[in-house]
């Protein structure tokens, strides 16, 4: 396999905290790894087992919930 392993990471982020933090990081020109894909949710209470399973099913190597 060419190149080193780059895990695909999906993050479910709360609109009011974790997502805002990521947004602020962007405003401050701070970088985070491009293999992290963020999905904004209005509240992490909205995140369901199904969301996590579907992310894995569609090829994510890791999933995190931040809120």
């Amino acid at each position, binding site marked *: 396999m060419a190149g080193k392993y780059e895990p695909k990471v999906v993050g479910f982020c709360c609109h009011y905290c974790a997502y805002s933090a990521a947004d602020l990081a962007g405003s401050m020109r701070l970088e985070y790894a491009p293999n992290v894909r963020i999905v904004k949710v209005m509240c992490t209470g909205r995140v369901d*087992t*199904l969301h996590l*399973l*579907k992310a*894995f*099913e569609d090829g994510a190597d890791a999933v995190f919930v931040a809120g």
Partner: protein
Amino acid sequence: MIVAERKPFAEIKEKIKDYKKLLVLGCGTCVSVCQAGGEKEVELLATELRMVNKMDDREVEIGELTIQRQCDREYIEPIIEKAKEYDAVLSMACGAGVQFVAEILEEIPIIPAVNTRFIGVTADEGLWLEKCRACGNCLLADYGGICPMTMCAKSLVNGPCGGYKDGKCETSRERDCAWVKIYERLSKQGKLDRMREGFSLKDYSVQSHPARQVNEAYTKPELAAAKEK
């Protein structure tokens, strides 16, 4: 409602291992409420199956479908053609639903994905308790609305045994004595004299299986004619 629980994943996986095209069929009534086999559980199980098949390098097509009731012909008939596109149906309904779908689809194997537990109530979030044994001869009016057939470990219908202690059953200290509960309930209702009267005999003859229920007002004329002959 009928309460069920999903079978262990390993058991489901073993039963479906020979099929290449599988339809996961949910039921939108009782098993949906008790979170065992509704639309969401269908999605969860189908996702789990797809992932495990991918990990095992197996090519299996998994379809998902949930109908309102698997115990009602009118909800099954619209999906017959769809179901015939599959090698097997993994039904998440109770035992009644599984059998009725099997009877209607006939040539297609039906595999149950849940274990049917009991007729019960939602006591709390994620907690269901058995309340009725479907004995066919309800005497709850005599027992203050507490069923000794279900709640008593020995299904005694004419008073407690000698084994209870501090309101608990001799089979388990966790279990309330049904008859202590009945006494307390009748006491609250001011109907304790009901216990002194003795209880009517219970008709166990109505418990023959498989049971059958007919509402003649709705019976089709041809069936009524056949009955008269």
